[in-house]
Structures are given as structure tokens and as C-alpha cells.
């Protein structure tokens, strides 16, 4: 079975998705306050690495979701917004609907399991 990363189109597509994803996040009034423009470049790099690792089916992703978001207060509405934007960015990058569904299901599971 090819990994989600391969089915999405590999690292180059991930980079395109992340670029688009942050474009959407920083224009959404529900979540834009979470993103410091100065930190954005390094955030994108970290996000690319995290997504590549998670979707590549590796055992341990490089960043712990719980620790990475410990300083933020995040509402369910905001989580939904982020997921919608990620899905939208993947769609814009031409990712197949089933691959998108699986990627979102996986990421959503990892997010909700962060306090387990």
C-alpha cells in the first residue's frame, strides 16, 4: 500500500498545500490571531515536516501536538475552520477526494488523541 504522502504527490505537493493552507488561515478572522507573521516562515517549514512524517506513515511525528499548542486556547469552531482550510488546500492542489478524506481522518484523530 502506498502511503498517503505518496498518493498526495510527495513532498513537492505538501509544500504547495502548506503554502496555500497558511494563506487561507491568515485570512480567516476566526483563527488568524493565532499566527504571528514573524514566525510564519518557520511554522511552514515545521508544518511541512510534520505533515510529511504523519502522512508518510512514520511511527513518531517530529512534534507533539499537545506541547505545540499548549500556549493556545483553541475552540472546536477553530479546529473545524483549520480542518476545512487544510481540506480546501489539498483540493486546490488536486488531491483525490478519498485520499483527502483519509488524511483528514488521520489528522483529526491525532489531534483529538493529544490528551490521551
Amino acid at each position: 500500500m502506498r502511503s498517503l504522502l505518496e498518493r498526495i504527490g510527495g513532498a513537492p505537493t505538501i509544500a504547495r498545500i502548506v503554502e496555500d493552507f497558511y494563506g487561507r488561515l491568515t485570512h480567516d478572522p476566526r483563527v488568524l490571531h493565532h499566527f504571528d507573521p514573524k514566525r510564519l516562515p518557520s511554522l511552514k517549514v515545521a508544518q511541512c515536516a510534520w505533515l510529511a512524517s504523519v502522512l508518510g506513515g512514520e511511527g513518531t511525528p517530529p512534534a507533539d501536538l499537545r506541547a505545540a499548542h499548549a500556549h493556545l486556547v483553541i475552540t472546536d469552531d477553530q479546529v473545524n475552520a483549520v480542518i476545512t482550510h487544510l481540506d480546501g488546500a489539498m483540493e486546490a492542489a488536486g488531491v483525490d477526494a478519498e485520499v483527502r478524506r483519509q488524511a483528514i481522518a488521520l489528522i483529526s484523530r491525532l489531534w483529538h488523541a493529544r490528551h490521551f
Partner: protein
Amino acid sequence: MEGVIGRESEFAAIGAALRRPDLAAVLISGDAGVGKSHLLAATMRHAEHNGFAIVSVSGTRALADIPLAAFAALLPSRLAGDAGDLVQIRRAIHERAANRPVLLGLDDAHLLDEASAALAHQLASDLTAFVVATLRTGEVPPAAVTALHKDGLATRLSLDPLRRGDLGAFAAATLRTGVTLEVEDALWERTLGNPLFGRELLLQARDVGSISLREGRYHLVGPFAAPDTLADLVDARLAGLSDVHQRAIALLAVGGPLEIDLIERLVDADALVELEEARVLVADDQDDTLVVRFVHPVYADATRRRLGRLTARQLLRELATALDNSPRKRAEDVLRIATWRLDAGTDATPDLLLQAARLANRRNDFALAERLGSHAFEAEPSLQAAATVASAFVEQGQYAKAFALLHDERIDRAVASARDRFRAAMVEATIQFWGLGDGASALGIIDRMEAEQPSTADVAESFRASIHAASSRPVEAMSHVPVGSVTAHTPFGVFSVLTALTAMGKPDTALTAVGPMPEFGRSTSSAIIGVAYGFALIETGRVSEALRVGVEGWERAMREGDLHARVGWSVAIGWAELNFGRRESANRWFHDAAELAHNSAAARHGLLWALGGSLLAAAQGGDLDRARAVQAELDAMPHHDAIAHSYMGTRGRAWLAAAERGNGVAIEMLQQMAADALPGSNLAPRLRMLMDIARLGRPDLAVELLEQAPTEYDGTFLPALVAAIRALAGDDPAPVMDAAESLNDGGFRVLAAEIAAGAWQRAQARGDDARLVAQYARRAQELRELIEAYATPAFITTRPEVTLSRREREIATLVAAGRTSREVADELIIGVRTVESHLARVYAKLGVRSRAELSDALGLAGATS
């Protein structure tokens, strides 16, 4: 964490698994009473609290034979027993999820029916749900549950008894008050940390006064009165029940879970209520009926141990009579009535047994059919009984036994009805051809049957056709089932039309003739139709449709417990996957098919087809050790006439020979095979062989052979194959790339990638414009990336990767990031002209024309050289 005393580390392990992206399941295994269900329940509660949607499903012994029974509770209505159920269940899960991640709890997963287990496996592997399952140590779970672990999707968690240090907290939680160290010691000594035993022991000790409450803690007053083991404790508890209660639990122990109206005919309703209150029994809703069962399987085991053989027989007789007289008796109850009567050792008439055996055959429970039918046969050795049991043997791959039974000298054929003689002849012809591979003997049996009973002419014709079709005599096959005839639409007729016309290069005509995938219920033919339909779809150029139809067929077979059909569909799916470029998946499907074939009616022909697929997949993948092993296995098989779907194997031999002894040897073998295929008009497999010859480096020879049999092929694939062979014989890259593209459109990704590499080579060899060569290289590379590793010559000898020098890559990256040439020049301290000339080379290598195209193309460029 509440509810996980002494289980904190296991609980944390489940959490860790949930956070690992490479996992989709946790399997919790342990002994009875060790607290598996408890841990699962705590996990589900905690997950729900953290925003997961929970789907909870349990396996039970009573429902282990009913497909998808475990998931039935998710549906608003009853199971329909068709393909719609899976869709409905998935929809129900999707609705419950409402955009939340799903945790699927499978309690007692070792008792799940196969179809539910398969569904759970799918839900985990396509990431629809994270599965947490409990398994009793020593029980054999359904293969799909074990597969979760084998496939690397699940981690295993073995649940040991509680540790000594955890007993204090455990006792306090059970009694809601702390206990002294002395009580802990006594508890440890007796239970060694088994939580179920510990709980029962503590509650009993409190009730009989062995422990008493003083100064806020329980103190040990006298010795624990309870017996030494959990089983003994349950025994003691059951022994204390009154006679009427004993009778109720004994009935459940011998009869399995029972419908409320059945058990109430035999015991007082009040007794059942009391047993429910005492938490020995529970009642669940199943299919609109209340079904009564034990609260924990250890109670059933304990009850059975206490029951005398004679009492058990008496109870079975009572159950059989009560069910027989029940006003709510259903057709399938005859199975339970016959089995109970047989086990009770009385009043099972041959008629009843035979009726039940036929029902068991229809429900694919061939072991039960064999048992019931054999008893019927021993009591009355009729041809009817022999044919029923022989069918059951055939379906379990035991052809020799089936043959012997039909020729048992006690059978008096003269008294058998015409219908029974017909059925026996059909079974025997099946044994001769599909089982023993002897087409001539089978044809003889069919001829004799038709001579004796002219009314069976249609069946005889379609059976003859199937033998010819499967033996690669397509023209003869079609003479028995002309398109549009009645016989062409019988199960064997459909198989014959699909197989024969596809072999003759007319897969599209075949599919049009049979219409949408026909449904014939379970029959030997359902399996071979699966293969034939899948192969026809592929050869007509619809690989993805073959995959979809194949998986649907496989799921249906899985649900119906139809092993034979599973073999057929697995082979078809494997073949589609191999064409599609998923060699590993293909390998798994072929492997599964071979494994399943052994105990099915496909024991011989199914194995032949599956091993053929494995050989081709292994040889083309460069896994020569495996290919040699599979070839040796094929060599060890006795001759079988059903060779029509074994061309994968014969071609596989050639590919192995190519890897071991060079392309020349392989080409000679293929040339011989192609010559053998010609007289019988097996043109589609022949075309594949010619393509193989072209792939191995002799497209000129392939074209020469092609001219020997000019034919109109229908569908899109076979004509594309012809075009590809012709293009490969020339130097012009354009038609080669066109052929690659049309093959890719049909889902033939391996061929497409190989041929595209050929186009690139031709462009390079001809010295085409660098930008054009680069475009071919890029496209070849793109197609190459769609498939897994194949080790055919095209992939070994060509490396169509684009390589940029370090400086070129540096400059290209900066330009792609939006810098102007001037900015790049300043940054790298070189001249603008140098930047431009590097950039021009990059454009040529990547086959792009503008800065906008550059960033896309960069992702496809290879490493620095």
C-alpha cells in the same frame, strides 16, 4: 484515570497508539476475567470525552456464523443480506461520526463473524475508524482481525493479571472502601491478580462476613470461604441455584443463546427474571426478538462441565421438540432442529437430516452439511443423500472423497428419481473436470446424462461449453453457447461466453452479450464467473472498473462465506492490481487466493490460477527466489485441463527465464507459446505474449508474429496493445508515447510506464531537441512514479530521471522562489549572463518554458549530479 486501576500503563499505551500515524488499531489480549472489556470500556469513555465518536460492537458465539451480525445494531432496520448492508453500515458510522474521528470498540473480537471482522479491517485500513479490540487468549480470532497485526496496522497489548501493588486500590474501588494489608494479602494469595475472580471473591467475602468494616476499612475476620479458582467460584455460585434455575441455565448451555419465546416454553418465566437479576443471564434484542444468553462465557463453560451426558441429550430433545412445535418456526430452524436431534441421538429422520444438510450447503456451512448428510446417508444410502454430501465434499476441496461416495456400492440407482440422477451426474462431472482436471471424462458423463434425460439438453450444452472454454478451446465453446441462445445465459453459459470471447480478442462483445454482472446466488459457477468477468473487464480496457467490481464481488463472497467465489474474485483483483502497477497488493491477493483455494471447490483450478498470478508478479518484480518457489509448486501440481486463466503462469515462466537465463531464452519460450495459442484462436493471451516479446527487446519479431493472425480486436486495450507493439518496432518516439498514454488511460500503468520510457529512449537516441527529450523524460518519470517497483528490462536499463548540477539547482530554486536574474546574480556573486545561461540549460533539461512552470517541474527533478 477512573476505571483503570492497575491498568494505567496499558491505558497510556492505547493513548500512545492513537497518536501514532502509522497505526490504526490496538489488539488487547488476555485471559478470561483479566479485565479486557473493562479496559476497552474505559478507553471508549475517555475517547468520547476527548471528542471521538464511539462505535461499540461485540462478538458473540451465537452470532458468529451470521454475516455482519455484530454490526446489525447500527442499522435502523434488519440486515438485508446483500451488498447494501455494507453501504448502510458505513453510512451509519459516517452519520454518527459527524466530522469527529471514530473509535471502533470490538469486544470479544475472537467471536466476530468473518464479514464483521473483514469490515472492521477495512474501516481501520482506510482510516475511517481507529479500532480497539479485545481477544481472549487461546481463542482463534477471524483472519481479518489477525491481519490487522500482520499488516502492521495494529499494535498488540497483552493484558496480564493485576500486580500485587495494585490490589489495594482495586479492592477499594470494588467495595467503595479501603481494605487492610491483610485483606490484600489474602486476595493476592487466592486470585493472583485476576480482577473478575477478585471482584467475585471480595463481594462474596463481604456478604458472608469474612471481612468486616471497622474504622473506615475492611478487616479480615475469617478465611475467604470461596473456592480456589474462578471456575470453581462460578461453579459454587451456580451450584447454589434452585432446580428451576439449574434447568434454565442447562438449556442455555446445551442450546446456545435462545429466543425468549422458545426458552419460556420450557422453563418458568419468573426463573429467567430471577437469573437476570442475579446477573447470570442477560437478554439482547436481535432481529426484533429477545435472545437470552449468559452474562459471561465462563458461566456456560461451568454449566456444561456440570451437566451429565444423558441430561444433555434429554435437554436437546426437549429443545428440538419445542422449536419444531413453535408457531414462530422459520425455514432455517430446521438446521437447529436436525442438529439437536442428531446430538440427542434420537428421532432424526433421514428426510429431516437431508433437508437440513441441503440448507447447510446453501448457507456455505459445508462441514455441517457433510455431518448431517452423512448421517442421512448411513441411515438410508440414497443417491440423493450421496449427491448432497458429495457437493459438501467438493466445496471443501475433497474431490476424492466425493467421487468415492457417489460410487458407493450400497446406492441403488434404479430407485433414484430422474432429478437425483441428474444432480449426481452434475456433481460427478464437476469432480472430473474442475476437481481432477479430466475434461474428456466429464464430457462423457454429460453425454450419458443427456442421452438418458433429453430434457437436460440446455444444462448439458452450457456445461460442455464451460469445459471447452476453460480448456482454452474458445471456438468450440461458442458453438455450444451461441450469443443470444438460452444456454448462453445459464451460469456456466455466462462463464463460457466471457472466457471464450475474451480469449478470442472480443472482450467487449462478451461483456455486451452477458449484460451487467449477473447474479446467480451461490453455485460452483459463481467463482469462475468472478474470474471470467474480471478478466473480460481488464482485457476490454477497464482496469479500475474491474477493481471495483472485483472488490464488490469479493465482499459479497466474504459475507456469504463463499470460499470458492472469494478465490475467483481474489484472482481477478490480483490481475487487475498487477496491471495497475500495484505489485505488492497483487501479490497479496494471489497469495490469499492460493491459501483459500486449498479448502474450497477451487482446490485445483483456483490454485493453478492464483499461483500463475504469483509467479508473474514475482518474476516481473525481480523477486526471483519467490518466483522459483512458486514455479516449483506449479511444477509439482498434476496436469489440469482448465488452463484458460493460467496464462499468467505460463508467461511468468518466461519472465523468470528472462531474468535467469537471458532474454533470448524467454523470447524463444514466448514464441512457442504464441504458436501454441494460435490454432485455438486464443488471440488475446497471444497478444500479451507478443507484447512480452517486444518488452524483452524484439518488437520486430512481435510485429512479424502479429501479421500472422490479422484480427479485429474489440474494446480499447487490445487495439492499444497492437498499436504499442507496432510503435515499439519503429524509431519515432511520438507514436510510442501516444500508445503509452492510451494504455495509461485504461489503467495499464505498468505497460504505460515501460513504453513511455521507450519513447524517451527513442527521442534521445534520435538526437531530438533537448527540450523535447526532456519533456519525454518528464512524462516517463511521472508515469514511472505511479507504479511500484518492477524489474522488467525497460526499468532496469533506463533511468529517465532529470539531473541538475548543484549550481543549476541553486539558481533554479531561487528563480522559482520569485527572484529576478539580477537578484540571483547579486546573491551568488556571479554575472547576470551566467545566471541566464544556467537557466536556459535548466529550462531545456526540465522541458519548461517559463518561470511559472519552473517550480512545478523542480519537484520532479532528480538529485544533483
